[in-house]
Every structure is written in C-alpha cells, then in structure tokens.
C-alpha cells in the first residue's frame, strides 16, 4: 500500500509568495541531491537526506532566472537560463555565476530538459527543440518557429524510449489544447488535437504523463476536479497529418470542482497518481495518493498552510511548497495487487531460508519509465548499470602512477588496496590495463619483473590473453613456469603458437630447475601406484572385454605379450617427474584448434616428442585402469584430451617418430591401443543401439493403453 512518510522542510529561508516563489526542482547527477530554482535569482543544491544545502548560486541584480536549473547528466554540469535567452553553465566548484560560461541564444527558451542517458534538450518558446551540444556549437543559429500565433506552451516533459529521448509538449490556443510529440530517433514532430469529449466546458489545469513501450499516457486534471487520460502513440501513423485524440475519464472528482489554484497532478507509477488540491470545496488543501486501477484513495496528507499548485516527484520524494517553505514528503509504494487490496500480501516469514516466489515478468524488469518503482515491482534485484562505467575508480589512477615509478613492494600494497574495492562492470579491462602497464615497465627496465603482482592479477579470474598480450611472452622469456601454468589454466584464448612454446619449455626445462619452483600439483595424482602388479592382468581384461580372443590380435600384440614384464615396467612408472607432469597437464587442458597447432608441433625436437608421447601413453594406461576411464585427482586431464594430443603429436611428427629406435615399442603399443579404442567405440555403438531397444521395450511396458479405466481412491 502507498504510504506517505513524515514530511520535513528543506529550505530554511522563506520563499517569495505566489507562483514565482519556486521555479522548479530537478534531479542532479548524484542520488539524493536536487537542484531547487527559486523564482528570481537563486539556485540551491540540496542534499535531501541531510536536509541541508550544498551550494547556492545567484545571478546578478537585474537579471532574472526564467527556467529551472538542470543538471547535464553526461558532464555533471549545471545549466540555467536567465532573461529568457542567456545560458549559464557551471559546476559545483564555481562560486560566481557571472564568471561562468555564458551563451546568448537567438530565441527565447521555454525549458531545458535533462534526463539520464542523453544530452540536455532545449525547448524554445516557439516550439523548436535542439540538443544542447548543437546549440553551444553555434549559439546564434536561427531557431525556426513551429507554433502558430497565440499558441503558447503550457506543459512539457521528456522520456527515454529505447535509448532515444521523446519530448512531449502541450500548447494552448483559444482554449484548445494540442499535444506535440518530438521523437529524436526518427526526428519527427507530430501534432495531436486533444479532444475534450463531453466535458467541453471544463478547463484543463494540470498535466502529467507516463510512458510505456508504444504510448504516452497523458493525464490531465480539469477544473471539474476529474482526472482524464489520453493515450498518444509515440510513433505516429502519419506524422504529417494533424490527428485527434480523445480523452477518457480516469478518476472522478479528486479535487473540489471550484478550486481555482493550487491544484497539481503527478504520476508516481503505473497505478498511482499524486494530486494536490482541496478534496472538498470548503476543506484545506491536501496531498492525496490515488490508485487509478482500483480508483481508490490510498492516503492523504493535509497541508493547512496552503500550497502553490506545484508538485514534483523524483526517486521516492515528493516536493511541494507548503506555506512558504519547500517541503519534502518521502513516499513509498508497494506494488498494488488484488491480494494486497484484499488482505495482507504475503511476506517472507524468515528471510534467508528461501525467497518468496512470485510471477516473473521478463519485460518490466529494467525500468524504462519509472526506474526504482519498476524494479521494486518485480522485486528482482537487478544490477543497475552504473553511469560512471567509463570513469575508472580513483584507486586505479593512483595505482597506475605507482606502477610507473615505485618499487615492487609498493606496487603490491597498492594493488591489494585496488583489488579490495568493489568490482565495476569493466573490471576486466582495468585489470588488463594494469598488467599492460606493468609489462610496459618491464620492457623498458628488464630487471623489473613484478612476479607477485602479476600472479595476483591473474588470479582475479578475469584476465584473458587478448587483454594482456605480452604477459605470457615475458613469462616465457623468464622461464617462469609457475606463471605459465597459471596462465594456461586461467586464459581461455591462448594462441596455439604460445601454447606450443610453453610445451617446448616444459619439456626442455631441467629437473633441477623444476625442483626449485612452486607448481600447482592438483592435476597430478599419486604416480607411484600400488596396483602395479595387476597391470598385466588388467590389460588382458580390457582386451577380453572388447575383443573376443587373441586371434584378432596382430603379431605385434603377441610380441608385446611375450615380454609383459617389460611393458608393465615401462608403462606403470611415470616417465616424467610429478612437477613436469603438472605442467604438461596444464597444456592438455588448454584450448586449441588443430589446424593452427599442427605446424608448431612440428618444431619440437624428436626426443621431447617421444617423452611427451610416453607420458601420454602412461596417462592412457592409467585411465584404462578403472571402468569410468578417468584419472584420479582433483582436475585431471580427460581421456579425450589425452587421445587428441596423442593423435596430434603423431600427425605432426610421424616420420620423425618412426625413425627413432626408442620410439618403436611405444608406437607398437600405441597401435594396439588405437585398435582397442576402435573396439571400444564399435562396442559402445552396439550397446547404444541395444539400450535404445531396451528403452523402447521399457516404455511400452510403462505406457498405459490409449484408453483405460482405472480405480483411483481420492483422499
């Protein structure tokens, strides 16, 4: 239900009486800060939660502010118009409005509109609209006249529709009202005549509007005290033609019919409007919240000291003049629902156990019209897009300067500080920049190699090869295998040439130097396996499993079987030290494309190829020890990866390997296992087919007949 909270007064200075007291309240680029323009000469920036002013600016004696000050959301500057034609642009550091940027235009301005996501738009009194940038580039440009004589703008508002601003303004001429819709995506201006319907006599006193995907819903408060609604399409059928739109009654007699002044109307969300004015002819002025869907009065607040007929609504705060003071009433509204109207909407009883489920609406989750309200409606916490995405946090700049000059220790300290800050959406690119900066210094002074910082950055899990192209090259140069292993594990997009360079390094690096390095060993399982004796038997079983008997085996098989002892010895002891195995596993895990990898694999020396093949063969045998064909350990290479690499290596270096005597036995055993693999596959395919048949049979059994009658005892 809608609820008005305790009101508080914003300005301590009494404002001038009458409608000139307050020109407008506008949002600034920071939440909770609002620009209040007093009629006359002053603009004050308030922080609403603290109820105190942050800054105040005045124009010179003799000048007069003619249009409420707004904030340019793209630059954070403030803009105000004085004497109808003079623009002033300043920011919070400026003290004197006389000394700030000034531009004098050729026509009189009605309003400046500024909303998130677009540049400010200037609406001239003659109906023309310009973007601020274009105006500032040529202030004296000719402004065309759109409106006819005696036609004056009464009210205006701007919306964002699919990233493009849409401006609506209402004009009056001889008691008739016209609506103009200016779209900026297709640069069309369309005109509508507001047709009053049966209530010809009433005079429209106030407007408000909201937007959904295709329509602007224009609400007007008439002198008969009723609220009417008019739907105007954003994209006209025929922009050149003057079209008529009819209004329909939305709420009956929300204010007393005879109220002369002090009535105002503003849309709060899809279902709620706030109305300012006396509810009964004799009563005091009131702020009331109406639900348009159920046509019910939700809540109201009396304003005994009178008000000025001006009402603004920004981010859960209603602003109005109460007596001579600017008053803020915070307003909260839960989504209106029948359930809520009927009784109590169900709330989560104990937060934490489970969140209350509800219907999901895929369309309304990102607020187009009413930011905060919409997200509240769907109750999904969406990541709000930060406006300052492109502005890196200050810690970043400090870090960059540290990197340029300071020692490795200092950099580490700064980096920790930086990483502790909450992550922005473009965190990955910022981290990439830091790495590039570090590498840049490394190339200019080779002794500088900030290993710890780099490791820390890689472990943020956001880097990729393309974000920091030089990193792995530098690590290769320094033979920093630990960092290379980390990169191979973390980066999704390492070029094949680098992968191959890493492989070469991993195969050639001496065991002694490996001893000194710290390498993540989680992918390597215990290599000294106690089930060595069973090995022989198990290969036998494998064979039996897939191949009926020995007859199918070639002579080479028999030859191998003749010296099972040798084979067992050869295959059950790991050909490489565990640390090297861990590094090679990192290679096996990395992504590659065969076409690009093969040419680089040809460059590996023959003895290294043999060593790697031996290791792969060893892994394969380990795999085939158990039924699931997996290796033990936390993150072991999969059978597919092992097989693919064996194929790749043989493809690339076959002629070389064939010529090497020590590789002969290896090749023979590989040949054997290829055969067994083919057997596995053919058997699996056979099994798949038979299982499918079984499944079919099973389904048939479970299936009820096309028609059956069953007995069912119901509770």
């Amino acid at each position: 239900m809608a609820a008005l909270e305790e009101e508080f007064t914003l300005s301590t200075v009494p404002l001038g009486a009458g409608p000139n007291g307050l020109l407008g309240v506008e949002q600034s680029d920071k939440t909770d800060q609002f620009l209040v323009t007093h009629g006359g000469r002053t603009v004050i920036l308030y922080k609403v939660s603290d109820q105190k002013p942050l800054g105040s600016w005045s124009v010179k004696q003799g000048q007069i502010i003619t249009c409420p000050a707004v904030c340019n959301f793209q630059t954070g500057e403030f803009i105000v118009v004085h004497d109808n034609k003079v623009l002033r642009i300043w920011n919070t550091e400026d003290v004197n409005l006389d000394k700030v940027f000034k531009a004098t235009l050729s026509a009189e301005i009605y309003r400046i509109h500024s909303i998130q996501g677009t540049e400010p738009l200037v609406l001239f009194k003659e109906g023309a609209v310009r973007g601020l940038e274009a105006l500032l580039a040529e202030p004296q440009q000719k402004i065309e006249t759109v409106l006819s004589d005696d036609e004056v703008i009464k009210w205006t508002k701007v919306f964002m529709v699919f990233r493009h601003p849409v401006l609506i303004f209402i004009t009056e001429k001889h008691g008739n009202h016209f609506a103009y819709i200016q779209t900026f995506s297709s640069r069309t201006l369309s005109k509508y005549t507001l047709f009053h319907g049966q209530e010809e006599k009433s005079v429209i006193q106030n407007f408000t509007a909201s937007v959904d995907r295709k329509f602007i819903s224009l609400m007007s408060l008439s002198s008969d005290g009723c609220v009417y609604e008019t739907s105007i399409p954003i994209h006209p059928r025929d922009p050149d033609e003057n079209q008529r739109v009819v209004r329909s009654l939305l709420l009956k007699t929300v204010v007393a019919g005879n109220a002369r002044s002090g009535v105002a109307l503003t849309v709060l969300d899809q279902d709620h409007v706030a109305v300012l004015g006396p509810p009964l002819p004799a009563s005091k002025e009131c702020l009331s919240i109406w639900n348009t869907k159920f046509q019910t009065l939700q809540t109201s607040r009396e304003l005994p000291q009178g008000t000025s007929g001006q009402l603004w609504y920004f981010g859960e705060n209603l602003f109005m003049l109460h007596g001579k003071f600017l008053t803020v009433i915070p307003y909260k509204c839960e989504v209106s629902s029948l359930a809520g109207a009927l009784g109590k909407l169900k709330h989560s009883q104990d937060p934490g156990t489970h969140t209350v489920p509800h219907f999901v609406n895929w369309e309304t989750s990102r607020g187009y019209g009413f930011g905060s309200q919409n997200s509240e409606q769907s109750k999904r916490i969406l990541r709000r897009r930060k406006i300052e995405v492109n502005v890196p946090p200050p810690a970043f700049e400090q870090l960059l300067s540290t990197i340029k000059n300071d020692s490795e220790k200092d950099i580490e300290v700064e980096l920790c500080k930086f990483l502790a800050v909450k992550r922005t959406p473009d965190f990955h690119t910022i981290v990439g920049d830091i790495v590039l900066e570090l590498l840049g210094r490394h190339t200019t002074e080779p002794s500088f190699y900030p290993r710890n910082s780099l490791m820390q950055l890689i472990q943020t899990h956001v880097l990729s090869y393309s974000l920091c192209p030089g990193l792995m090259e530098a690590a290769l140069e320094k033979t920093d295998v630990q960092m290379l292993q980390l990169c191979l594990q973390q980066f999704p997009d390492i070029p094949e040439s680098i992968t191959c360079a890493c492989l070469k390094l991993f195969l050639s690096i001496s065991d002694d130097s490996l001893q000194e390095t710290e390498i993540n060993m989680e992918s390597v399982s215990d290599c000294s396996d106690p089930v060595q004796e069973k090995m022989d038997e198990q290969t036998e079983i494998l064979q039996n499993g897939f191949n009926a008997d020995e007859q199918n085996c070639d002579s080479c098989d028999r030859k191998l079987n003749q010296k099972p002892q040798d084979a067992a010895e050869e295959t059950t002891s790991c050909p490489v030290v565990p640390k090297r195995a861990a590094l090679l596993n990192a290679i096996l895990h990395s992504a590659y494309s065969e076409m690009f990898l093969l040419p680089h694999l040809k460059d590996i020396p023959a003895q290294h190829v043999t060593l790697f093949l031996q290791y792969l063969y060893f892994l394969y045998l380990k795999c085939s020890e158990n039924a699931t064909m997996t290796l033990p350990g936390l993150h072991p290479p999969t059978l597919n990866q092992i097989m693919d690499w064996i194929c790749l290596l043989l493809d690339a270096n076959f002629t070389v390997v064939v010529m090497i005597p020590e590789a002969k036995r290896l090749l023979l055993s590989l040949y054997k296992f290829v055969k067994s693999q083919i057997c596995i596959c053919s058997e699996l395919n056979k099994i798949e087919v038979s299982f499918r048949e079984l499944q079919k049979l099973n389904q048939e059994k479970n299936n009820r007949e096309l028609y059956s009658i069953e007995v069912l005892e119901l509770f």
Partner: protein
Amino acid sequence: MDAFGGPIWSMAVSPCGSQLLVGCEDGSVKLFQITPDKIQFERNFDRQKSRILSLSWHPSGTHIAAGSIDYISVFDVKSGSAVHKMLVDRQYMGVSKRKCIIWGVAFLSDGTVISVDSAGKVQFWDSATGTLVKNHLIANADVQSIAVSDQEDSFVVGTAEGTVFHFQLVSVTSNSSEKQWVRTKPFQHHTHDVRAVAHSPTALISGGTDTHLVIRPLMEKVEVKNYDAALRKITFPHRRLISCSKKRHLLLFQFAHHLELWRLGSTVATGKNGDTLPLSKDADHLLHLKTKGPENIICSCISPCGSWIAYSTTSRFFLYRLNYEHDNISLQRVSKMPAFLRSALQILFSEDSTKLFVASNQGSLHIIRLLEGSFKHLHTLQPQSGTVESMCLLAVSPDGNWLAASGTSAGVHVYNIKHLKLHCTVPAYNFPVTALAIAPNTNNLVIAHSDQQVFEYSIPDKQYTEWSRTIQKQGFHYLWLQRDTPITHISFHPKRPMHILLHDAYMFCIIDKSLPLPNDKTLLYNPLPPTNESDVIRRRTAHAFKISKIYKPLLFMDLLDERTLVAVERPLDDIIAQLPPPIKKKKFGT
C-alpha cells in the same frame, strides 16, 4: 489480400508501425501502408533474382536489408532501389554447397547488418560500404533465426542443431571506446531446429520444431540466484484444447487443422485403488472433422448434451448439429451464420445446451439461442466503452443466470443473462486470468491467475468470499506458487460444494475448503496416508490441497459424474515420435 508475388517468405513492420514489408517467392519486396482499417499496397522495390527469405528495417526507417539466396541486398526505402548487394560465401567447411540461404538479417542503428545463413555462419556487414566485417562459423548446420535486444548490445541466434548462441557487444580495452561482438554463451536446450528466437531485456526465448518454448534468463542481469533465475520450458499451450459432453460421455479434441470426437468406453468391473479395469466397451472414434482451407482452429466446444459442435478459425465460424440414432451418427452443418460471428476467441454452451456464447474478436459477446437445427441471435453484450480488449475466457453458471468473461488484463466481467446486462466487474489483477468457473448452487466464481493465485468471488454478494480472503491473508504455499504451468481448467463436484477441482499440466488438485490451509512448513504434496494410520494422524496431516501427480502431462481433466473423472494425457514421447529426426550427432568414436 494477395501480394501477387507467390508465397510470402518474410514480413517486417517499420519501426514506426505504419508500413509493412513483404518478401515474396518471385524475388520482389513489396511495401504496404498500414492504416487503421486496411492494408494498402504502396510500391515494389527492385526485383531480386530469387526468393526473399528475411527482411529487417534500419531503426530510422530509411533503409532495409533483405536476405535472399547467396546474397543480401540493402535497399533505400525512399527510392526503392538496391544500394548494395553483399555476396555470401557458399563455402561450407571447405566444401562448396549448392546454395547459401540467408535465413535471417538484422539491421542495427549504426549501419551494421547481421546475417545468419544455411552454411552455419553469423556474419557482420557494413551496409555503408557493403563489405564483410566479421565472420563467425558457429554450426555445422543452418543458423535459422536471429533476434537483437532493444539496446542493440546483444543478440541471440538459433541453429538447426538445437543450439542457441548469445552474442554480446563487449569493449575490447578500458581506455578505448571500441567495442566488439563476441560470442559469449551457447545454450543447448532443444533437440531439433530452433526456428524462432526472441530477446527480452532479461531473458532469451527460443522455440522450434521440438515443440518447446524455452525461456533462459540472462544471469548477469539477475543478482540473486533464486527461483526466478531458473530456466523455463513451456511445452503445451496454456489453453484448454479439449471439451467434454458429460451427458453422452463424449470428448472433443482440438488439433490445428481438425477436430476429433471420441466416445468414452465403459466397464462393468469394480476394483480397488490402482487397479486397471477390463473394458466392456472400448472408446470409439466417432468423428474426424477437417477444416477447410489453411487456417488453424482457434477454439472449439461441444455442448453438454453432445448434440452441437462449434468451432472457429481466424476468419470463419462453424456450427454443427449432431444426431444420434443408435450407433449411427449424422452431422449437419448449420448454414447462414451471421457475419458478426466471423471469428471467435472462445465458445461456450450453456449447461442446458440451449444457448451459445461467443466471444468475438472485437471484444463483444454474442448470445445465441439454439433451436432444433437452427439458431436465433438473442443479444450482443458490447464491451465497456474505452476498452478494445477481447475476451478470451468464458464461464457460465450451471443455473444459466450468470456469464463471466475475462480478457487479458481488464478484470472479469460478470453479466446477468436474464436481464442481459453487466452485473459487476471483479477488479483487475496484475496477472492474466488462466481459468474461470462458476460453482453450482452458490454461484461462486473461481478465478485462477497466471501467477498461481486463486480467488473465489461470490457473484450474488459482489464480493470475495470469506475463504478467498482467508487464503489471501495467509498466502499460498510456496511450492504452489512455484509451479511452472498455469491452471487451465476448474470444475466442481455436484454433491460436494466444498470441493474445487483444478489442474495444470503436471498435477490435479482438489481443494477442500473445509480443511485447514497448509503453511510453508507443511508438506504440500501430501500422499494418501496409509489406511492403517490412526485417524488422529490422518487428520493432523490433512490440509485443503489434495494434489495428485499421477497423470502427466495432463491436458484436461473434468468430472463426468459423481463417481467418474476423465483425464487426458499427452505423453511427450508420442509428440517426439511424430517429429522429423534431429540432426544426428554421434556420441562415440569418430
């Protein structure tokens, strides 16, 4: 109207909604003007060599992209001439295919044209120069559909392998504003071709030959990983496709292009819970009624007495009279249906089969009296002034006094049929109504909404009933609210006024209003307690929602008489068996 270009392969509405483009078999692109009352031909664009399979407007409406076979054309809308012709490589994995079909194009506001084609490519073209900018080979089969988000920072494509790929515009480095399209996420939720994709602000939606509609929320847009962020798979339409004649034990099944009428079988045997009884008489397929023309059936209904069948396509309304003579059945079409009955969104017969209620396209409700072999138009209930919404759900009270009708958002209107006027309107609720029914005797209107809320509204008292208020105060069980499919049918037991029978696709439920409501700590799916348990335990664990999941997927369930329920299942395997085989992927070996 005819476009005079042979079969139409593609259509696109201009960004402002006033113009329609049509791509034809003969290679012509035709522009039509849409006015409120008609569609009018405006002009032809330059004729192309072969059929136009895809069309896309530039957001400003000045240019269009048209995908044909082997090339994409960019047209200037003002002049109607082709500005660029962009040839697509026919090569497919090094093998030259005969043709490369452009299944989809998307024109972005910065002038980029994205095309998807039968060679498995997603390509980015610069429409200003007509050059290929980037090429992604994503599939070994056709890429068939594309949808771009409103923000133009991400798009989604669907392939014939059943895979859906998400592409996003990602900045390359932080200090440059340069952004790049990157393939970010593959999803494999389909077994067959993905023929259509859509991109909502927070989710990707895909559908295709395998008859599933999949909604995949974008996880980066959701911070809390709860039930909302779960994948949704929709298999069956959220509508009632079956109607039932209780008196004659007939079921009418609605298919896309035909209706089937079946008579239920019977048995003389009895048994205990869980038994399948031998049939003394099998179910009979009485009638197979095919529609004329290519239009799909929108709605259908059989009268409770079984002697009338009515159905409607998008432009025609049909009424048939059925005559039963022993085992013979004869069908007679009632001719000269009035013009205002051209198309209907929902049809309903009154309980005594003397009146027919038709919710028509323009939001009005027609009441027709049925006589032996003919009919008489009684009255038309006009929609409330100002609303243009069509009614898509109807319910009539068994005593024939009340008619409830609901559209998609404007609340439920209850009409008094005796006086032919509006009785009251149940206030609008945020979520559409999925099922409506009026209980006998009490004339309580039970309304089920798509967010799984159920309301009971007393028509004579014009207010919600005490029970409805109680359950709204306490709230529904969280598992009840987490169900994926909406309630599609509600019925009542004639002798047990406290019971409401309702079902969705995966369960049916009897709500016993006399029992206490379950709270979140109680077990919602409470199986039947064993009979040997003491009465105390049975009573303690019992609550108002008696749910059974024995039949699923359940398309229809209704009470035939006091002791008989009829349930219609539609096993997924049967649907899959009728589909063309998916692209075969070998699991083992190469």
